[in-house]
């Protein structure tokens, strides 16, 4: 296991899939609020969490996009997303929030390798 004290949080839920995404983002915020170095990796359906222009007011649910926008204030400046997970969902860089960084499979491996601890939601 790596000696790094970086906490990697992997998020695989789309917006409005119940409150899965909201409760995953809560973990991100708590990690950052605890002063830990947090790395956010969105995978699979989690790609949709980073889509811009999501309108709030889906039936009875709060929008999660404001939480995504807030991450930068918590020093979570880069939101990693495997490029393949974006393209196979028809999402290009222009569709995603500005601090998204599209990464290839090798870089994803690196994120896992360099993490001291990992939480997957």
């Amino acid at each position, binding site marked *: 296991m790596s000696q790094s004290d970086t906490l990697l949080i992997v998020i695989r839920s789309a917006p409005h899939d119940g409150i899965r995404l909201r409760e995953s983002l809560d973990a991100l915020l708590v*990690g950052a609020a*605890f002063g830990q170095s947090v790395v956010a990796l969105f995978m699979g359906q989690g790609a949709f969490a980073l889509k811009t222009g999501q309108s709030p007011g889906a039936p009875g649910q709060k929008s999660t996009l404001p939480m995504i926008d807030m991450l930068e204030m918590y020093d979570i400046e880069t939101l990693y997303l495997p490029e393949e997970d974006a393209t196979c969902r028809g999402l290009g860089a222009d569709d995603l929030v500005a601090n998204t960084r599209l990464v290839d499979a090798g870089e994803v491996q690196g994120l896992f390798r360099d993490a001291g*601890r990992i*939480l*997957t*939601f």
Partner: protein
Amino acid sequence: MRYALLVMGAPYSSQAPHSALRFAHALTGQGHSLDSVFFYRDGVHNASFLLTPPQDEANLHDLWQELHETQGTRLDVCIAAALRRGLLDEAEARRHGKPGHNVAAPFELTGLGQLLTVQQRCDRLITFAA
């Protein structure tokens, strides 16, 4: 080794808590220690002492409690996820003006920060997702 478990599935509707319990017994049977179980998302339902399955089915709440009694395992429940789903201890019920409660010791309502603390303290954190 020192282990902790993260349980995110509800009893009976998800396999997660059942698998987590079996894993817990396998761990302690092999001489490892199980420091804590953290309940998050729908996993918080495991903490309700009102669970009343048919008599010939396992009562998951009671099995967690037994694990605490025999192994000293902490049973931490995320308070935000719990309140949202109607799981309250006596103090929270009073605070929110509710007529009853369904969570009591050894289950403890605590913040999500406790999950990070537990992960730092333990050698391994194993997730049982729904």
